[in-house]
């Protein structure tokens, strides 16, 4: 366990060594940003709309009563979407979509000697392969989470429009009532940390793949499992510290 942690930290240190040529690394960063950001937009959009709608319907089911203002449904949906659903559920989904892809890509490069080829050329392989992925994850996953928040709240609006429990006017009023900007800060901090966790853990698992195609699959699975565990753990820590 401690040996793995040490290897992980050393790999991160190697990943952020001075690049051989900035322009080559920059184009890799751009490529990874497109892969992480644009490539994940579809799945994030779909899950966000559904999660927002479900959160609204379930909150309404539990709270609608003559003694509680109906606008509270909007407020609760807003807070739960911004604080938890959008950053955490999106991160768990992205760990599966982006993380497994990164781990298997790097793992395949390892078992097919492509990483050895990079090293023999004099290229800092961790830097060339991992740092663009981490930069892309840390920058694009927060953007995806912002999209997720907007679509999640829109999903709640659609759920209100489709049902008779809460009017859309009450829902929109609830969204704006008692808004505390701190929750947006917490959401952004979570998204940045989750982006780092997914990309660095999955890259680490891929980089130290040893064996053949079976081990590449195992590395991808380990990367996703560890990312999910760490996402939930860091979610708890950030919530405890910032709220």
């Amino acid at each position, binding site marked *: 366990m401690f040996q793995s942690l040490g290897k992980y930290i050393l790999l991160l240190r190697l990943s952020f060594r001075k690049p051989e*040529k900035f322009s080559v690394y920059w184009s890799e960063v751009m490529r990874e940003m497109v892969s992480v950001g644009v490539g994940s937009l579809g799945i994030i959009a779909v899950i966000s709309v559904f999660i927002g709608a479900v959160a609204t319907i379930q909150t309404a089911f539990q709270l609608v009563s003559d003694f509680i203002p109906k606008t509270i449904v909007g407020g609760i949906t807003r807070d739960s979407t911004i604080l938890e659903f959008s950053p955490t559920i999106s991160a768990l989904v992205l760990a599966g979509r982006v993380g497994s892809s990164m781990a298997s890509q790097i793992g395949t*490069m390892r078992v097919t*000697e*492509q990483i050895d*080829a990079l*090293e*023999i*050329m*004099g290229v800092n392989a961790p830097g060339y392969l991992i740092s663009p992925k981490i930069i892309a994850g840390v920058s694009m996953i927060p953007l995806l989470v912002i999209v997720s928040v907007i679509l999640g709240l829109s999903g709640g609006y659609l759920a209100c429009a489709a049902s008779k429990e809460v009017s859309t006017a009450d829902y929109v009023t609830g969204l704006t009532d008692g808004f505390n900007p701190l929750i947006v800060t917490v959401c952004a901090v979570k998204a940045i940390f989750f982006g780092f966790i997914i990309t660095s853990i999955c890259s680490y698992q891929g980089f130290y793949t040893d064996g053949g195609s079976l081990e590449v699959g195992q590395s991808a699975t380990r990367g996703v499992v560890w990312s999910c565990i760490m996402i939930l753990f860091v979610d708890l820590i950030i919530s405890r510290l910032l709220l």
Partner: protein
Amino acid sequence: MIEIKDIYKTFGENEVLKGISAIFKPGKNNLIIGGSGSGKTTLLKCIVGLHDPTKGDVIFNGENFTDMDFEQRVPIRTQIGMLFQNSALFDSMTVEENIMFPLNLFTTQSKAEKLERANFCLERVNLVGKNKLYPSELSGGMKKRVGIARAISMQPKYLFVDEPNSGLDPKTSILIDELINELTEEYQITTVVVTHDMNSVMGIGDHILFLHQGKKWWEGSNKEIAHTDNKELNDFVFASKFMQAAKAKL
């Protein structure tokens, strides 16, 4: 010139290399041969720095490669070209991008100059016009040739080749051997080839190192190999009836 001095390599309890020393000269095809598990690939990896020897030195033109850190090794590594057993081409890049990759990172050439060099390397390995193909669209022999083109793109002083004939038909194997031989002679490269292909040994083996049980068991040329009385080497080289028949005719 590459000099290896008393190289030992241990993995856990398993001592794979046991004090191997040799000198590999420029313009020569230096072949490392031996049975499976004899340590030849481990020795190659120790020489190129993919493994750090447990003991011993690897010296490139008087510079001790073993003592250097990553940054210090970069200038020597840019003079090294390597062809891997499975070619190790970058899947996400085209043939042209594979060849231009080291040029992009380590030279200040313009795009036109890099393209010109890539085309020259492709011409050198008889793959003109294959620039835009991806590795998945190439045959095994073509991948090897692209691997050689990428290895020579930086005009290396040292060329390392790991099992160049594995998975190839006999005719393509001979073509690859001839190509390695031509490049070695033409550019006076110090070439080190790990192989267990007897056609390569007899065809291009200017200097042969036979490893057995992790030790240097025999050293000589392809002309000397037929007349050696070294039992282990004879058992290895003349294992097949075809080779025994060929030896009897000599």
